[in-house]
């Protein structure tokens, strides 16, 4: 009503607004601490190897190799992150991916034996079937975890053996040759020098990123992992959340299978056996809390790139794959230790003044 106070009010409001914006920015940085840390690591590792051996490391071929090798691992790592967000884990993802690739290859070969042209025509259908295989695998995982109530690590340990067993039995343990040429073409295609596979990877990451942080389902997944009891009391249906998570993870596994076969026109039951543990490393490195509730797609994408850069960087400076395996382990443990130390320091002063046991009686 009165003009003068309102003008000072406006100033106060403006001041508050600025302060608020600033704190929101700093918060966002803090919230995605995992992602920003990974960004620094990506840049550092890139700069490091570029400086050590620029002619090899910065060659277009090497950069393209990084971009072609990351997508399949990255997609599975994103799926792993989803499972970890709910406080679980999914060990069956690589087996699902292989099963999907094998299905595509087998069906293609079967059709191509009679009519090669028709087999090419059917490519979209085959891809779809590959994705459906992933979806079914995820559905069964979700059923075991959310309905039967088996701990995710055991449920997926079991299904990993089952899916892998089916794949081994189906292929007789041998490598299948035969895949739609269109897929192979896509696997080798580039858009403005960027491999198609990498673009697919980024698109997938973008979609899942939106799902995780910008949809009710994504937030429910995070809440379920952060505190299942509180989630239940907030009206979050844990069965539905766990089921959806595993289905989406399975779908991503199926997609990874398509990427496998696009990059390499073969399929076998034991392809990517080392990925099972590698993707856990990537997910954790990317800031995913294995206990659930926290993790970002951006962090996982950056972690995938970091490991790929370190891998090809090691090759560029003539270090072996063995040294790379070592570096991977060292990085993982250092990051976890660093997290643990800062985490403890951050929360220690605040934990005990309230009597936690006394609340609620």
């Amino acid at each position, binding site marked *: 009503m009165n003009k003068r106070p309102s003008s000072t009010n406006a100033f106060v409001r403006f001041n508050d607004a600025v302060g608020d914006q600033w704190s*929101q920015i700093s918060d966002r940085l803090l*919230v995605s601490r995992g992602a920003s840390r990974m960004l620094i690591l990506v840049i550092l590792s890139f700069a490091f190897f570029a400086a050590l051996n620029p002619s090899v490391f910065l060659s277009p071929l090497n950069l393209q190799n990084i971009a072609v090798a990351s997508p399949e691992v990255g997609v599975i790592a994103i799926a792993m992150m989803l499972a970890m967000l709910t406080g679980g884990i999914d060990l069956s993802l690589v087996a699902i991916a292989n099963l999907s690739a094998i299905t595509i290859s087998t069906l293609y070969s079967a059709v191509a034996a009679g009519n090669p042209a028709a087999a090419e025509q059917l490519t979209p259908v085959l891809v779809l079937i590959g994705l459906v295989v992933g979806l079914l695998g995820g559905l069964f995982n979700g059923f075991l975890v959310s309905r039967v109530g088996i701990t995710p690590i055991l449920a997926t340990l079991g299904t990993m053996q089952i899916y892998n067993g089916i794949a081994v039995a189906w292929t007789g343990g041998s490598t299948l040759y035969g895949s739609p040429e269109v897929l192979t073409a896509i696997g080798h295609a580039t858009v403005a020098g960027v491999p198609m596979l990498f673009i697919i990877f980024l698109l997938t990451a973008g979609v899942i990123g939106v799902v995780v942080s910008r949809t009710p389902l994504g937030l429910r997944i995070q809440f379920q992992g952060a505190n299942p009891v509180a989630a239940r009391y907030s009206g979050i249906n844990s069965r539905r959340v766990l089921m959806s998570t595993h289905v989406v993870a399975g779908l991503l596994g199926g997609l990874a299978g398509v990427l496998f076969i696009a990059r390499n026109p073969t399929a076998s039951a034991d392809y990517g056996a080392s990925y099972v543990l590698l993707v856990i490393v990537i997910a954790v490195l990317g800031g995913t809390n294995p206990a659930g509730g926290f993790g970002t797609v951006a962090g996982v994408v950056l972690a995938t790139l970091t490991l790929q850069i370190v891998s090809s960087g090691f090759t560029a400076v003539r270090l072996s794959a063995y040294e790379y395996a070592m570096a991977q382990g060292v990085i993982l443990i250092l990051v976890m230790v660093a997290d643990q130390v800062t985490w403890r320091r951050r929360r220690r*002063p605040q934990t005990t*003044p309230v009597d936690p046991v*006394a609340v609620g009686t």
Partner: protein
Amino acid sequence: MSSPSSEDSPVAALQVRDVVKTYGGVAALQGVSLDLYPGEVHCLAGENGCGKSTLIKIISGAEKPDSGQIVVDDIVHHAMDTTAAIKSGIQVIYQDFSLFPNLTVAENIALTAAVAERKRLYSRRASRPAAQAIVDELGLDLDLDADVESLSVADKQLTAICRALVHEARVIIMDEPTTALTHTEVSRLFSLVERMRARGVALMFVSHKLDEVLAVSQRVTILRSGRHVLTADAADLDPASITRHMTGHDVDDARAVSVLPHDAPVVLEVEGLGLPGAFRDISFTLREGEILGVTGLLGSGRTEIAESLFGVLPAARGTVRVRGERVRLRSIDDAIAAGIGYVPEDRLSQGLFLEKSIADNMIAGSLDSHRTRWRTLDSSRVRQTIQQLFDRLRIKAPNVGASVRSLSGGNAQRVVIAKWLANRPRVLMLNGPTVGVDVGSKQEILDILRAEAAAGMSIMVISDDAPELVSSCHRVLVIRQGRLVHILEGQEIDVTTIQERMAA
């Protein structure tokens, strides 16, 4: 041990001298002292957050004091560690018992002693007689070969007591020992306490239940905000004086309740609600804008009634109507769909996502109502809702991005309330809305409830805090033995009446 007689025994079994402990600048204990004599039951009383738990942790060696001493047998300890405490004969029976669920009763009893003796080998057969002896001596009926996991709460506690005694404990501290017990179990515990006292054990009871405090103890020490208020003979105290010392002021009996319009429509109508083993035949109505108190002793069924209406413990019998329409409450989803919200009793484990931000916590219950056409979250509306509630409930935090762990009890509770307000329920039930909340914040939370009620929400406050009910409720339901025994209205609502009716 010398004589079992209590007060005149000159040698204290345990002395605590000027113990100070601060956590990150917050003083939890500010120079607390007390003596504990053999053959006495000493009650340590105080409100939540007064420092009881911290004191126990320091005596048991789980925490180190900033300064002060603990004296056992003329040996001065500046800080205990767990082993030293056990060696000195100090045993703590924690509220959660700290038993090993995967081991048998006999092993649970025997292991701690074996650890303290620094044994290297363990023999199931050799350790059994000791366990059997203590069980027999106390005249208990415990299956020594059962896994602790499979025991009832009372038997778990008995196991914990046996474990404490088998190692020649001279000081036993029991943290809220009666919380989960039925009446028979409580009297059995008390007779056990008498027997332990006769053996010359010094017992410390930590409790905030006044009736128990007076029934079992010889002396009482009261803490308030980390300070020692007084130590006195139990005979010289009564519930009212203890309350006064615990809270630091006289009981506030003032009412601040709006006048409900006569034609305020009925929102919730409960008829003949029953759940075997918890409550039966509960019928009441709740009107628009009304604040209804639901009170009763712990275990009276008051929490179960609320959880039934929220679909956590679906009722076996009875009907519930919301705005005249019959609703089935078989799950939490049902309850939320019917417009019922619930702020649970245990804020930390049931109400909050501690590491998540205030904003995330606020939106956790109303995600679907902030959706766009594309099934994504409408971030501008989300932000609007959050900022509005943050301002309206005057949550004291730098901003909505701060993690809930950093908040005080009162502010954390506002976040839980905000989560439900964002969902705009017709009926909001709050279980112990101000437990563990400081006095100032308590009034503000009650003001928030009054404002919401005035805006048309119907509110149920489940609480045993009589002054709080008096100051905020239009009517108060008294639950006893799982039955609705009184509905107090208007002038009937005062602290004494509520307390009498609850316990009668």
